[in-house]
């Protein structure tokens, strides 16, 4: 018996979402008195994983293949899950985590539950709290299967270190007969992605045009934050789709969400509702965002935001 977690990494280093999944997995394993087994690909930093109480790590060498390969990765995870007779598996809510989760679930005859917030309220059968209706509600979902794959909502559990002694094993990298092949990956490498970010700075139509986005980017740089935008901004082509947050865009579950010149349409608010602390800066005191925010400034973004950026910069030094 074990809990299996999939630790995502970038250039051999575990991602924060991967370590959050390990933290959560440790709690599940402790609650059931079983061991915590992690699966990673081409990991170079075992110490980091050791610090999160992983008992056993299958570090799979992909023999030079650099891209995430959903078919081979899911097969590897399914094999470990079967080998360790794990009844619980945890993946993150990153793009890759949500991609691989349902596939592993079918391969291992497991139930799949996404957007999980919080520890299970019971284990036999497993029941957890999830968000639904794009964060407008929660539900308690119960499994009808013996095995469950959970996709943990980012930043919902946090990082909890626990020193352990990890046993590192190599694992098979299964081959795939599937026709799907990754040809290339285009990634903005010097920026934090929305999924990984603790802080997200978002801009709306109030910024008047893409040429003014340096205001958003400067603030994001100082905070080490990801940048995001509202739906109209991405529809008008001011910013790329990948920044659009809201009901039909990306969900945001950051610790701090700063909305600048975003009015706060119901679809936008739903998408960012899982963020812990929301700040709005808008010249219109009637903007619906003020009803959803924790802190607000009624003021001109072009005046307020550069001052905020400068003051934060001075504070960091």
């Amino acid at each position, binding site marked *: 018996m074990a809990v299996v977690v999939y630790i995502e990494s970038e250039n051999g280093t575990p991602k924060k979402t991967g370590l959050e999944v390990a933290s959560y997995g440790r709690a599940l394993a402790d609650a059931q008195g079983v061991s915590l087994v992690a699966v990673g690909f081409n990991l170079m930093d075992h110490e980091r994983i050791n610090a999160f109480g992983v008992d056993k790590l299958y570090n799979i060498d992909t023999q030079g293949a650099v891209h995430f390969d959903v078919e081979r990765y899911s097969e590897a995870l399914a094999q470990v899950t079967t080998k360790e007779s794990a009844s619980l598996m945890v993946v993150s809510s990153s793009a890759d985590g949500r991609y691989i989760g349902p*596939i592993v679930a079918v391969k291992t005859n497991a139930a799949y*539950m996404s957007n999980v917030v919080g520890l299970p309220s019971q284990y036999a059968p497993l*029941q957890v709290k999830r968000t*639904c209706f794009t964060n407008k509600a929660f539900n308690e979902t119960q499994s009808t299967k013996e095995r469950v794959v959970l996709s943990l909502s980012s930043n919902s559990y946090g990082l909890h270190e626990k020193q352990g002694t990890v046993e590192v094993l190599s694992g098979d990298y299964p081959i795939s007969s599937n026709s799907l*092949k990754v040809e290339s*990956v285009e*990634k903005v490498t010097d920026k934090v992605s929305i999924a990984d970010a603790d802080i997200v700075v978002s801009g709306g139509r109030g910024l008047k045009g893409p040429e003014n986005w340096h205001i958003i980017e400067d603030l994001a740089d100082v905070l080490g934050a990801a940048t995001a935008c509202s739906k109209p901004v991405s*529809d008008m082509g001011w910013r790329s789709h990948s920044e659009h947050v809201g009901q039909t865009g990306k969900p945001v579950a950051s610790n701090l969400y700063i909305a600048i010149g975003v009015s706060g349409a119901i679809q936008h608010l739903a998408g960012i509702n899982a963020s812990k602390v929301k700040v709005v800066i808008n010249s219109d005191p009637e903007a619906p965002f003020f009803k959803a925010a924790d802190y*607000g400034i009624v003021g001109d973004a072009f005046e*307020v935001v550069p001052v905020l950026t400068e003051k934060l910069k001075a504070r960091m030094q």
Partner: protein
Amino acid sequence: MNILVCISNVPGTTSKINFKEENTAFETQGVQFIINPNDEFGLTRAVWFQQKIGAKVTVVTVGDASCEPILRKCLAIGADQALRVDLQPQDGFEVATQLAAICKKESYDLIITGRESIDYNGGMVGGMLATLLEMPYVANCIQMDIASDEVSVQREIDGGKESLSAILPLVIGAQKGLVEEKDLIIPNMRGIMQARQKPLEVVPPEAAAPASKVQAFEKPAEKGPVKLVDAEDIDGLIDLLENEAKVL
């Protein structure tokens, strides 16, 4: 080419979300249902292939008779025929199982699902369906071109995009980007009239069980009022974020 587009009937994006029967069921009273937006992006791309390369487009949903208006809308948008599996599903696995049965009866070259439905946000049907059918799956699909049986697609990843190639058959999870918002087809009167004549077949469900069940719903706690900070007092805001909210 045979394309199947899987459609979910969901509450409109501005709907008030309430629950009934002691918070065990969604209150549908007064709620306007729409085609799940991610599915509609997929359907629009399918209709584009129909017009460009003569593909046949079938739409399918798993649901009771209350889903028929949105199926008619799909037909008015341009789908050739509609199927409704007569079952009120309990989870995404049950939907995927029913869809897999449909796909085993008739062979489809391309199966389009939405990235996720905006009601339960499970995001599982596409990946499960592909795995049940032993087909490749591309989630978060933001671009797709087909040349004979070779497909080039793009998947949105965290902080960028990934380009992939595959050979049909293939399952994708559509989202915005596959087509733009402005490309969405608003049915005209002719389309609506034609849709009435197009076949909408009701299919009995296969015997299958869900993998999970919702026990109860809950609405988030009411939020307190916003704390307003004067536009001149940026230090005050930083202080609140640092010492009260503890997020800096």
